[in-house]
């Protein structure tokens, strides 16, 4: 018996869908465990079980053909592929092992006190006196990661303004190459990419930092000297915009969820839960593609070999088959197991960095701010892969 394969005429990269992706995600989940998307001649999984399974099963769903819509077997990547995100074992093994150590929870312990002090200093600057209204995107969500992360990597001060547009374009480029967001970013890209490539070289990195740690691994022979700059590039591509949007997501969630800020003030030890619940709820990285290496059964159907499959993290993170009341941002929930950082061998290697940044900033804010609320309508920033805010007007009461 052959099941009828659900087919949806849906464009996940349509600006209206990017502005409000929740209805499209629900439609994909409800259509079935596997859905055909003829618009891009591709497939999609959007339920938690299938998303989790596809992310875990790197043996069947490869990343080396690219994790965007472009199939690197037939099309050309816009830049040399990532040694982490766009690689499979065994090539993936060494870069992953090195970066997992460099960004591991134990390596981050030495940054903890400094980052909390940095967060307190930033909050002091933003809240000189009493209650303020501000746009939380530039002043908090972007300001804090940009204050601590480039220093932690060991980047030069000059040129850091390239980081956010570079990351924004890299995440747009996982979408269709003729998409307006991609086309709009193409012109400035050589300049951003040139600066980023320069920063990845040993001589341009500070003697202490994640970048130096990566080069030290190359000195120990754990990476080749050709791999080291590309591993540093992964930090600069995936480590800035994502955390900015993660922090934006948790601030937004706390501002719009009645009682959440008070609950967090009463139990500040919940800050880590709050951030991960926000990553589940908002899914700053919405989806990546995988490519089947053979005919792979999903549900009652089979994806033929060599096909692109959209793996929809955001839809899985709100799948009612997995989560009770999934649309609620709920501090009493255990968000563990969400796929906002992915899952399996490609799970976000910087997740502990993201958590420490968010924890530092929220802890500093909780010490000063008695109430957090919207001060105007927030505005979305559209990106083919990321879900984020362009502007988030907040009132911080103190």
């Amino acid at each position, binding site marked *: 018996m052959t099941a009828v394969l659900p087919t949806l005429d849906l464009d996940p990269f349509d600006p209206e869908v990017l502005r409000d992706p929740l209805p499209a995600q629900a439609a994909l989940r409800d259509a079935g465990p596997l859905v055909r998307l003829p618009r891009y001649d591709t497939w999609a999984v959007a339920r938690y079980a299938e998303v989790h399974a596809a992310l875990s099963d790197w043996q069947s769903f490869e990343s080396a053909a690219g994790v965007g819509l472009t199939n690197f077997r037939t099309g050309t990547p816009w830049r040399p592929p990532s040694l982490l995100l766009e690689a499979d074992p065994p090539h993936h093994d060494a870069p992953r092992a090195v970066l997992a150590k460099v960004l591991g929870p134990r390596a981050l312990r030495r940054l903890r006190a400094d980052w909390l002090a940095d967060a307190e200093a930033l909050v002091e600057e933003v809240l000189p006196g009493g209650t303020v209204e501000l746009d939380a995107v530039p002043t908090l969500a972007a300001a804090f990661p940009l204050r601590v992360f480039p220093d932690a990597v060991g980047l030069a001060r000059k040129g850091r303004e390239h980081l956010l547009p570079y990351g924004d374009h890299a995440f747009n480029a996982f979408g269709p190459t003729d998409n307006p967001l991609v086309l709009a970013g193409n012109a400035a890209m050589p300049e951003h990419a040139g600066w980023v490539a320069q920063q990845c070289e040993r001589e341009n990195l500070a003697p202490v930092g994640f970048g130096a740690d990566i080069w030290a691994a190359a000195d120990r*022979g754990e990476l080749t000297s050709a791999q080291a700059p590309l591993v540093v590039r992964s930090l600069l591509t995936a480590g800035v915009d994502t955390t900015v949007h993660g922090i934006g997501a948790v601030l937004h969630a706390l501002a719009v969820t009645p009682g959440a800020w008070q609950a967090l003030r009463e139990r500040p030890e919940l800050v880590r839960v709050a951030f991960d619940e926000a990553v589940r709820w908002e899914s700053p990285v919405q989806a990546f593609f995988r490519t089947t290496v053979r005919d792979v059964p999903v549900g009652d159907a089979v994806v033929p070999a060599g096909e692109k499959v959209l793996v929809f993290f955001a839809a899985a993170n709100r799948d009612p088959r997995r989560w009770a009341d999934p649309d609620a941002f709920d501090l009493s929930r255990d968000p563990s197991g969400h796929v906002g950082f992915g899952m399996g061998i490609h799970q976000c290697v910087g997740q502990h960095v993201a958590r420490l940044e968010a924890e530092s900033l929220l802890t500093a804010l909780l010490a000063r701010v008695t109430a957090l609320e919207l001060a105007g309508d927030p505005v979305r920033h559209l990106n083919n892969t990321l879900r984020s805010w362009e502007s988030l007007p907040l009132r911080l009461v103190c």
Partner: protein
Amino acid sequence: MTTAARSTVRVAAKERLADGVVALTLVDPDGARLPDWTPGSHVDLVLPTGDTRQYSLCGDRWDASAYRVAVLREPAGRGGSAWVHEELAVGDLVGLGGPRNQFRLVPAPRYLFLAGGIGITPILAMVDAARRLGADWRLVYGGRTRASMAFLDELDDERVTVWPQDERGLLPLADLLTGLDDGTRVYCCGPAPLLDAVEATCPPGLLRTERFVAREQGAPVRDEPFTVVLDRTGAEVVVTPEVSVLEAVRAAGADVLSSCRQGTCGTCETTVLAGDPDHRDSVLDEAERAAGDCLLVCVSRSRGDRLVLDL
């Protein structure tokens, strides 16, 4: 959802490979994927006798449903290998720790693999990786006799030199290790005399070795309940063998995040204030494990009857 199932594997096959060597195929009792691993990794097997033994994974990691280990019967050993050979049967359950990797394959244009006897096990996975990487590699595999050497049928390759001692004498290390270029990495695993000889001959920057030194277990891994104290609240919770520390402390009100729930991602790392951790994760290295100041609560447990956590 029981944790015991995740840290327990079932013996799906037991097969004699060579004189004194059996291979075990290990699967999840519920048929789930086993944790991912990389060449050079080993697992801890917790035998029903209470003994813990480390074995290199030597199967195919493109098959996530099974691990393969090969066990040499060591008459002079502490009894673990004899038990595996004589008593362990298909269908039996054994405890699992790891996998962990202290013997990683680093990227290089050329590899020289040197294996002695059962030391072929981690090398076997490395050979597979070197093939897939398209590296230039060579394996010289020594053993007492051809009949004692496992996996010869899987090593039918012109780049493999089989060197049984009774036919050809000791491995010609001086020849093998002379004139290596700087791009070559030498991986050696085998008995201590082989490793000592290789270390004495090989240019040091090129060599990576793994020694199988039986770890002294101060106490057997517990199969009885222990108490976890949540220091910040003062709550105490008894952790029975069927539940993880993570599940137990969450039930006691601690909001610990986790993600992979198999000891690989590090999300649930928790500070240990007192007690003796039984590390069963694949994140911490030996020094970090020895420090005993943190615990990946999704898989790791306690050796003693009491563990105090910073929760």
